[in-house]
């Protein structure tokens, strides 16, 4: 009797319900999983400056002033504006197609000039007396190298002055929704300009360039030189008074 039992061994566990159990777990994870990744508008805040020296007086033509009041109404460059027109307005500011006196003057950057400046700053860096000078020259050198890169890829181009900036100010009761919409329109203006330029020069949209490939990385840098994204998250100023 004993022998018989041994020979049979313990019966196999029925694995028929294994699939059901796995299904149950699977459904649990399917339900709890959130696949959404966080998306949003990325911004860099300016660092706080300790010394309160008033900044150089920037020419009015170099500032694109966007005010949003407490009632979510827009005042752009002193004129009331609908949010729908903001994108075109910002694009006009950045391109200045009619060489208007009220919009930033874009200066031509040529290859010869870039090569000259790069050579100059190379020698300055090499001859710099102290560390701070060297760092300053190094920064200048990098800036000109970036420009040279842009000229190589795009040909001579027109550059926005360094002071040109879109300044966005809100009232204390402006809704966050409106603020995001304005940010979105400004972002869209820059993106559309970059896309157009990229399409014309490289046959590919700017947003389709990937920074993993070395040559496309340079293209991105070049396009950013022509249309920099300069939206100022300036010191908060209550615009309630101004806008009224």
């Amino acid at each position, binding site marked *: 009797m004993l022998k018989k039992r041994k020979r049979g061994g313990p019966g196999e566990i029925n694995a028929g319900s294994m699939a059901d159990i796995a299904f149950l777990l699977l459904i649990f*994870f399917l339900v709890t999983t959130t*696949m959404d*990744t966080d998306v949003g*508008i*990325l911004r*860099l805040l300016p660092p706080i400056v300790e010394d309160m020296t008033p900044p150089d007086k920037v020419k009015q033509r170099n500032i694109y002033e966007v005010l949003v009041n407490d009632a979510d109404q827009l005042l752009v460059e002193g004129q009331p504006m609908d949010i729908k027109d903001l994108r075109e307005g910002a694009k006009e500011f950045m391109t200045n197609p009619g060489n208007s006196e009220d919009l930033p003057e874009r200066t031509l950057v040529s290859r010869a000039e870039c090569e000259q400046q790069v050579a100059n700053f190379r020698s300055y860096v090499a001859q710099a007396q102290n560390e701070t000078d060297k760092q300053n020259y190094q920064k200048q050198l990098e800036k000109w190298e970036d420009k040279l890169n842009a000229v190589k890829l795009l040909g001579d181009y027109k550059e926005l002055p360094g002071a040109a900036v879109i300044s966005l100010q809100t009232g*204390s009761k*402006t809704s966050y*929704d409106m603020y*995001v919409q304005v940010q979105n329109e400004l972002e869209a203006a820059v993106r559309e300009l970059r896309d157009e330029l990229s399409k014309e020069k490289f046959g590919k949209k700017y947003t389709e360039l990937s920074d993993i490939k070395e040559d496309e990385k340079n293209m991105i840098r070049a396009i950013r030189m022509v249309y920099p994204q300069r939206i100022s998250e300036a010191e908060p100023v209550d615009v309630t008074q101004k806008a009224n």
Partner: protein
Amino acid sequence: MSRFKEKSNKGTPAISTASLPDIIFMLLFFFMVTTVMREVDLKVKVTLPEASEVEKLEDKALVDYIYIGPPVSSSLGTEPLIQLNDQYAKLDEIGPWVKANNDRRQEAEVPRITRSLKVDKETHMKIVTDVKQELRKANALKINYSTARGRQ
């Protein structure tokens, strides 16, 4: 004739379901690995505004969230509150919070940390601006206005 008959009698053999558990397990492991459980309980109501020009936040491990919105429990009123981690916070707690989060990470990663602002769209800008000023003071400059994908 008999040949045809024979065939139809046989019918198609049943599909073997022996590998079904394996397939299910594979799916199960996929979901187990990709699942990220929600880290905090939301104590404020946040309806994100919509935007079209959005970018993805690449590295989830390097994102900290600040929630701003009206509190969930109505006993606390309807004024928007700030939530850091799992609790309500005041403005002056943002600085220490940033520092604590920086210390938690490797030094090289600190400049790459993004603070994602999840703000209810009905909120007034006052509180958002104040939070931004606090972040600037704490030298946490990389921020993200979290939005939903939409519009246009």
